[in-house]
């Protein structure tokens, strides 16, 4: 996606579009807004919505046959439709001030003649006069009203019409018959609304029913003359006024921007969990009291799609709909000064990019790609908050350099399969990788590729690093004879599918499920499968995991919501710790039963919450339930241990990790402090390096009284501080450590 495609990305989203009732309304009234204001007793605001839409509210609330009611989505739940017209009447009764607006805009020089003072002529004249065009209404009869004159309540209608025109300058020429358009040559435009059976001046054949225009460029037709009902005629008058306005401005009748959408895009909302609400009946047959009207209006479900915004914690937190997000992502990409109008930065880095929104969206709009676009654009412009992803990028660099190892089976140049466990599986539990490789090696011509797919770079928006890594994978894979990659991580599979489509992959879990001799252990009577977000659409992988769980004798329970992110996705932990915590808690508590997971990150997230859970490989290979979560240093050590063991098996060589000067230091660190530092993503390795550098250069602070030292080290974008005390040869007791992202200069 390119920045210019951002807004198009949410085109299909129909959030904010008029509801079904508005589509049915001849006036396209925003019925949702009207009812919302009535329900809150905001009568003046409700009245403005009503009057602005229907032009003559007294006339319409008396005569409208309410096509909106048959489109009311309440009826789909078995309830009666909202009593719209009665609510309009109640609004008129309750609003105290009905003075029309005065439009403080300069008068325009163009003059328009309206032929006929019936409903359509009046509404057209009113709309044009509000825009300050010079309007003259020519009417054969002695007064306005047209067909309304016959109605028994005409006195009320007359008053309403008088009220709406009272603030406007319109010339009415009653008793004037127009028999030839040549009489109107002094006008710049003419609207002919002479009523049913009236004079169309021979223009009916050339009439355009969308623009109300005719073969004579300055002459427009509409209303009952063209077969409309009274309500349609009222609406047509105003619509015609828009075409006339465009004609006067541009010399050509054309559709205007911002018009009501032509068609409803056909999405009836599910309204899940909405309780039934019977219609409110007025106690007094003459109509609703204010309170009754409010109660009746409150039955409106405000039909608008907010499914993604309800389903996703991140969208719920920021309360921006997809269109707004798209616009902000787009505008953000066009501002690259550091002090910019960026409005969506925190949200961009708070997205798990899990695709759940796209899955629940009736039209499949996924917000993740927009956030990814923004991350990429920011990074390439150098205006990204680098500290938010720095930790994981460094872990990725480690996994693809020191932690990487690839080889076909011993003595071979190439292989048909290669195990691709991903960076986290071995880091989290070396047994998962080693036992899986044993399984594969016994059955298939399988080598191994240890590394990282590049997901951290992808989530950081670091295209350059991602591309370089992808190229590395491609070269290694080609060098091994283009094997099928056996993936244990759904995220790896997604990244590979996206960037290396030429590589065939298969899920390790499918191969395990196909091997009848694999007998997973039964750890619980029943368990819920927690499918990782990246497994979305991976039906065979999901089925394989379920087959393995069932084979163990454990009853496999389907989760309520599938493929939700555990919280880890998109690496939002630093960008939005509060949101991360909320997501983790929601997923942990989503099902009271133990979870079976098949993503190393999911396992760590749940284990760190004390949730009973197991990786499917724990069950498949009967591995002991481990320590909840390995620490940062243990993870790196695990990656190297896996490499060492597999290298020995495949090449016979002894892998010796690269030794750094500070590796020899010993840290004495309280367990609670270590866990706390892990949470702050400060590793023992960084602490050792900081101490070593400080001690070597003598560059530190000292507190002579306690014998404590304090040193700092700037690494990439983070500055680390370590407070420590010597504890024997090469050993240091760690008292505290912290970090910050700002850099400081030495002095001014």
């Amino acid at each position, binding site marked *: 996606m390119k920045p210019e495609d951002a807004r198009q990305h949410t085109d299909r989203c129909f959030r904010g579009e008029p509801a079904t009732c508005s589509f049915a309304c001849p006036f396209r009234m925003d019925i949702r807004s009207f009812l919302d204001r009535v329900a809150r007793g905001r009568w003046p605001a409700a009245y403005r919505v009503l009057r602005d839409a229907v032009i003559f509210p007294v006339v319409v609330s008396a005569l409208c046959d309410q096509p909106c009611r048959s489109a009311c989505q309440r009826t789909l739940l078995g309830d009666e439709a909202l009593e719209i017209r009665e609510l309009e009447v109640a609004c008129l009764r309750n609003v105290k001030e009905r003075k029309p607006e005065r439009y403080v805009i300069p008068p325009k020089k163009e003059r328009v003649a309206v032929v006929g003072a019936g409903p359509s002529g009046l509404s057209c004249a009113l709309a044009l006069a509000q825009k300050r065009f010079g309007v003259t209404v020519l009417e054969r009869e002695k007064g306005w009203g047209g067909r309304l004159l016959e109605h028994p309540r005409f006195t009320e209608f007359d008053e309403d019409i008088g009220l709406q025109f009272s603030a406007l300058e319109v010339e009415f020429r009653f008793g004037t018959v127009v028999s030839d358009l040549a009489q109107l040559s002094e006008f710049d435009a003419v609207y002919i609304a002479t009523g049913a059976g009236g004079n169309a001046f021979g223009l009916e054949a050339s009439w355009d029913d969308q623009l109300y225009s005719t073969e004579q460029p300055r002459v427009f037709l509409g209303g009952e003359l063209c077969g409309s009902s009274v309500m349609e005629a009222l609406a047509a008058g105003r619509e015609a006024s828009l075409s006339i306005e465009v004609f006067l401005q541009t010399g050509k009748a054309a559709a205007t921007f911002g018009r009501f959408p032509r068609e409803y895009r056909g999405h009836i909302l599910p309204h899940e969990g909405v309780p039934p609400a019977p219609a409110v009946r007025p106690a007094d047959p003459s109509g609703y009291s204010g309170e009754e009207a409010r109660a009746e209006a409150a039955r409106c479900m405000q039909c608008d799609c907010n499914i993604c915004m309800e389903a996703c914690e991140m969208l719920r937190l920021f309360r921006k709909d997809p269109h707004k997000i798209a616009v902000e992502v787009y505008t953000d990409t066009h501002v690259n000064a*550091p*002090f*910019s109008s*960026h409005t969506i*930065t*925190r949200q961009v880095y708070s997205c798990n990019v899990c695709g759940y929104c796209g899955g629940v969206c009736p039209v499949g709009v996924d917000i993740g790609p927009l956030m990814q676009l923004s991350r990429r654009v920011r990074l390439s412009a*150098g*205006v990204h*908050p680098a*500290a*938010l992803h720095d930790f994981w990028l460094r872990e990725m660099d480690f996994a693809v350099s020191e932690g990487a190892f690839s080889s076909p089976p011993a003595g071979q140049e190439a292989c048909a399969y290669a195990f691709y466990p991903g960076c986290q599986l071995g880091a989290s539990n070396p047994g998962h990788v080693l036992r899986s490789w044993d399984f594969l090696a016994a059955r298939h011509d399988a080598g191994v590729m240890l590394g990282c797919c590049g997901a951290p770079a992808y989530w950081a928006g670091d295209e350059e690093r991602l591309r370089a890594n992808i190229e590395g994978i491609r070269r290694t894979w080609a060098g091994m004879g283009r094997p099928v990659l056996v993936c244990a991580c759904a995220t790896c599979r997604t990244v590979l599918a996206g960037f290396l489509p030429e590589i065939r992959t298969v899920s390790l879990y499918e191969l395990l499920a196909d091997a009848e001799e694999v007998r997973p252990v039964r750890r619980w009577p029943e368990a819920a499968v927690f499918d990782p977000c990246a497994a979305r659409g991976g039906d065979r992988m999901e089925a394989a995991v379920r087959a393995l769980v069932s084979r163990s004798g454990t009853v496999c329970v389907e989760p309520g919501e599938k493929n939700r992110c555990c919280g880890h996705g998109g690496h939002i932990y630093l960008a939005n710790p509060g949101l991360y915590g909320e997501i983790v808690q929601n997923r942990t508590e989503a099902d009271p039963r133990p979870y079976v997971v098949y993503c190393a990150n999911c396992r760590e997230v749940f284990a760190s919450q004390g949730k009973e859970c197991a990786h499917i490989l724990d069950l498949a290979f009967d591995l002991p339930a481990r320590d909840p979560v390995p620490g940062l240093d243990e993870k790196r050590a695990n990656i190297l241990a896996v490499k060492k063991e597999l290298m020995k098996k495949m090449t016979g060589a002894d892998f010796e990790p690269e030794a750094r000067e500070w590796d020899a230091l010993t840290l004495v660190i309280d367990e609670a*402090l270590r866990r*706390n530092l892990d949470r702050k993503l400060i590793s023992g390795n960084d602490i050792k390096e900081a101490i070593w550098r400080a001690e070597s250069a*003598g*560059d*530190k*602070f*000292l*507190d*002579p*009284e*306690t014998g*404590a*030292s*304090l040193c*700092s080290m700037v690494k990439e974008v983070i*500055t680390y*501080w370590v*407070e420590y005390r010597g504890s024997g040869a090469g050993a240091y007791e760690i*008292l*505290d450590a*912290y*970090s*910050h*992202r*700002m*850099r*400081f*200069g*030495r*002095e*001014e």
Partner: protein
Amino acid sequence: MGEGRKIWRCARCDRELVAKKTIFTYMGLTLAHEVEACPGCGKVFVSREMAEGKMAETEQQLEDK
């Protein structure tokens, strides 16, 4: 988690720290703030309270820009 308030001295210059106006930069922006530093070599001291308090808050604000 340290052991009470410490009186830091610069190990290299063996001098007590003094308040000094110092330049901080983040996300392309520069701010000046008075912090403790060595009067000899200028080495700046940042406490945990400051790093995880005021600085973290400012970092967040600048990231949101």
